[in-house]
């Protein structure tokens, strides 16, 4: 055992010697005295590009190859080769001049690097093979970045090798004391966590809005925010650490793929928000195609991985440029959402610049440069959420305005319709009124023609012929006046009250009966309401009964008249009987009998019937009226 150790020691010294010879030009980095601030390692690296990717660790240690390392690199920020097909070897010479053993941590701040191999020749530490294409468990120190602990014994030096093979090579490398790294690590995770907290809150909130408002534009926002958060997680190594520690292939393509998805979601989101289909129909077609391409682009990885990695960034930038231009155009056109988008793009630009500045290493890292991407992304997310909220507000206000407008127009239309209806109603009523007037006129004309008119004409002829004495003329005129009074009474509304009608008749005829010395017996009883007693029908009844009275007075020479009412099933019976001399109905009708015929006619007109029962001892006149008039 001891032998082996000795042998090993010997080997180490040999290597060290060898190394010290071949690497005489390497910048040595004294690591025993360090402040809390990390040391940027880029200027201490010696770098060898291996375009063939074939060199092995043993190869780079040969003197010939070792000489090809470029040394004394200028202090020009992070080592950055961009997209490359080469592998790169990094050599770093560390020295501990102190009397104590020191532990230092080498941090490579590019968690997306596909393959990293770390070698510590001359120590018992085996080579470490890690990178984003390897499981997270391959890392010697569990951190989102690649962290390699290096231990140097007192008064010793150590050369370490780092091989990086990745589609995109940028190596922000730092050396930390373990204490200061622990502090940095804690603060860094806390800050990262708060960023993802914001994202989570925004996503949940908008998901809630999406469900509540049932509008899929929120889904686009959620998609975009989720993708950009995953992108940030991937970019900062958190995704590998927490989300997909073993998804090695996915880790390789996650970054560009998420970039495309983010672009697709946000572009579609802005397309909807800015309503480009109507505002810029031609550009809208372009945007639509861009969204389709961005969504399908990750498939190109299956065809050609280098193409996928190389074209990815330009395609993304094309999208950003396109949507920036559209946003500015729409902002000039005073679209409210566009203001937010322009601002979001400015923030995006600023955060990009800040990130680039950080990468260049020309500026001291500050909180803002360090977390520029997260801050920018969070602010952007908030701005887009504001745009959504503002849009919601606008829609709501417009909806309220619309409702108000609709109400106003409804009211207007209602008023117009009302006016129309009332005009129609007025017209109809006028027509109705005219028809009613015309009917009444006809009725009165008919009545005057049958009664008053013919009586007056008879009187006139008689007076002209000198056939009538003064008394007869007086009687005729009195008849005429009675006729008139009954006609006027008939125009009063009697409200279905037949008795009131009979009462009126009695009231009018009483003076005549009295002067003729006739005793009237009023034997009326209960009579149901007759709802068909219009003025016209009332006059018919009055005339029928008036004629009956006239006959009793003039022709029958009665001394007593009985008036009675009775109810017979669905009819009301009015009976006027007298004790005068009777008459033969047939004969009376045959010999003129205008009055009788009028009674028949009028009874028919109101749906009633008349009949007589006459004997030598008197006459019964019956008028049968229906309670309900059949039309």
């Amino acid at each position, binding site marked *: 055992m001891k032998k082996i150790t000795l042998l090993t020691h010997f080997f180490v010294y040999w290597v060290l010697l060898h190394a010290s010879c071949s690497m005489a030009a390497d910048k040595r980095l004294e690591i025993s005295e360090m402040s809390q601030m990390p040391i940027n390692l880029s200027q201490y690296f010696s770098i060898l590009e291996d375009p063939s990717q074939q060199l092995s660790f043993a190869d780079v240690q040969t003197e010939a190859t070792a000489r090809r390392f470029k040394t004394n690199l200028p202090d020009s920020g992070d080592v950055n080769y961009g997209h490359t097909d080469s592998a790169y070897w990094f050599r770093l010479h560390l020295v501990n001049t102190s009397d104590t053993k020191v532990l230092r941590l080498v941090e490579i701040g590019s968690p997306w690097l596909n393959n990293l191999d770390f070698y510590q020749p001359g120590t018992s530490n085996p080579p470490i093979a890690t990178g984003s294409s390897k499981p997270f468990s391959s890392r010697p120190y569990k951190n989102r970045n690649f962290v390699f602990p290096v231990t140097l014994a007192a008064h010793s030096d150590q050369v370490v090798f780092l091989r990086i093979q990745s589609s995109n090579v940028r190596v922000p490398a730092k050396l930390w004391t373990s204490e200061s790294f622990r502090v940095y690590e804690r603060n860094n995770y806390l800050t990262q966590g708060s960023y993802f907290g914001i994202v989570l809150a925004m996503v949940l909130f908008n998901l809630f809005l999406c469900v509540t408002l049932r509008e899929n534009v929120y889904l686009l926002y959620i998609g975009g925010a989720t993708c950009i958060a995953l992108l940030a997680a991937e970019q900062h190594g958190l995704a590998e650490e927490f989300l997909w520690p073993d998804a090695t292939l996915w880790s390789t393509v996650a970054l560009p793929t998420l970039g495309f998805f983010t672009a697709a979601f946000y572009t579609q989101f802005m397309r909807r928000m800015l309503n480009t289909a109507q505002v810029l129909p031609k550009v809208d077609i372009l945007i639509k195609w861009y969204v389709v391409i961005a969504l399908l682009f990750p498939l190109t990885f299956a065809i050609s991985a280098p193409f996928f990695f190389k074209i990815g960034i330009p395609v993304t930038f094309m999208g950003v440029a396109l949507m920036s231009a559209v946003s500015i155009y729409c902002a000039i056109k005073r679209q409210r959402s566009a203001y937010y988008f322009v601002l979001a793009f400015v923030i995006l630009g600023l955060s990009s610049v800040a990130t680039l500045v950080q990468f260049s290493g020309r500026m001291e890292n500050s909180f803002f440069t360090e977390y520029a991407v997260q801050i920018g992304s969070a602010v952007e997310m908030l701005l887009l959420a504001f745009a959504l909220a503002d849009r919601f507000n606008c829609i709501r206000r417009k909806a309220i305005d619309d409702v108000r407008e609709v109400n106003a127009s409804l009211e207007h239309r209602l008023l117009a319709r009302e006016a129309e209806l009332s005009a129609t109603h007025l017209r109809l009523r006028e027509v109705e009124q005219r028809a009613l007037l015309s009917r009444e006129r006809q009725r009165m004309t008919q009545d005057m023609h049958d009664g008053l008119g013919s009586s007056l004409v008879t009187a006139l002829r008689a007076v002209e012929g000198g056939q009538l004495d003064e008394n007869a003329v007086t009687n005729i005129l009195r008849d005429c006046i009675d006729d008139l009074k009954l006609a006027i009474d008939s125009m009063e509304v009697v*409200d279905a009250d037949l008795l009131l009608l009979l*009462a009126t008749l*009695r009231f009018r005829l009483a003076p005549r009966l009295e002067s003729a010395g006739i005793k009237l017996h*009023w034997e009326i009883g209960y009579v149901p309401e007759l709802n068909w007693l219009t003025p016209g029908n009332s006059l018919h009844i009055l005339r029928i009964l008036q004629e009956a009275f006239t006959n009793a007075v003039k022709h029958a020479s009665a001394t007593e008249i009985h008036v009675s009412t009775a109810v017979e099933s669905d009819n009301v019976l009015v009976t006027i009987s007298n004790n005068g001399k009777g008459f033969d109905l047939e004969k009376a009708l045959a010999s003129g009998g205008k009055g009788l015929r009028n009674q028949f006619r009028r009874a028919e007109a109101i749906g009633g019937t008349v009949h007589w029962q006459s004997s030598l001892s008197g006459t019964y006149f019956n008028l049968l009226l229906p309670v309900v008039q059949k039309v």
Partner: protein
Amino acid sequence: MSELLDLPLIQVVDLPFIHVVLVEDDIAFQKAFRAAISLAPDMHLVTVASNRAQALQALEGAPADILVVDLGLPDGSGIDVIRAAQIAWPSCSIMVSTTFGDEMHVIGSIEAGASGYLLKDSSPKALTDEIRCLHGGGSPISPLIARHILMRFRPDNSAAASANQPIQSQAQIDLAAEQTTITSLSVRERQVLDLITKGFTYEEIANLMAISRNTVMTFVRRIYSKLEVKSKAEAIYEARVQGLLGK
């Protein structure tokens, strides 16, 4: 002629003259009226006014017992004359002379203060009978007018009218209460009117209700004055509601 002149002298001893004033523009009716009165030994035609102006002037003179007014005067409505007479001659009985005795004319006159009406085609005897009857405290009534008054005094009528006024001041409530007490019909008055609408005569009603004919006639007179009071109260009420009068 001498007979006619003698008769009043005899009557004067027993009864005072019924002083009659006629307001009428129709010369023919004036003549007929004069003739009818001259036949009545107990009546004296004080003045005949041919128009509204003359009638109002006549009201400044000594009060008559009976004022007969035609509504259609050449210079205005007889209603004005009736109203003025109500104030100038409170004790005078006013009757409106009308051709048909129709509801419209008669109700309007009774509301103005008339307590009877005279049909122009009445025989001279009927004419003087009516005047005498009115002077004696009775009033004529037709079934249609009776029904009209019954409708006007229907108990739910005034209640409905006041219920239709959502805001009632104390004065309005008082007025409503006053209306129901002063201007509501008694059961008997209502009964009389009801029988009249069924065609019964004063005599028949008197028999049916076991009261004298005179009582029936005074019932009718009282009903008329209630209608007058009611219509005046309603007019004031209406005016108040419409804000034509102050509180």
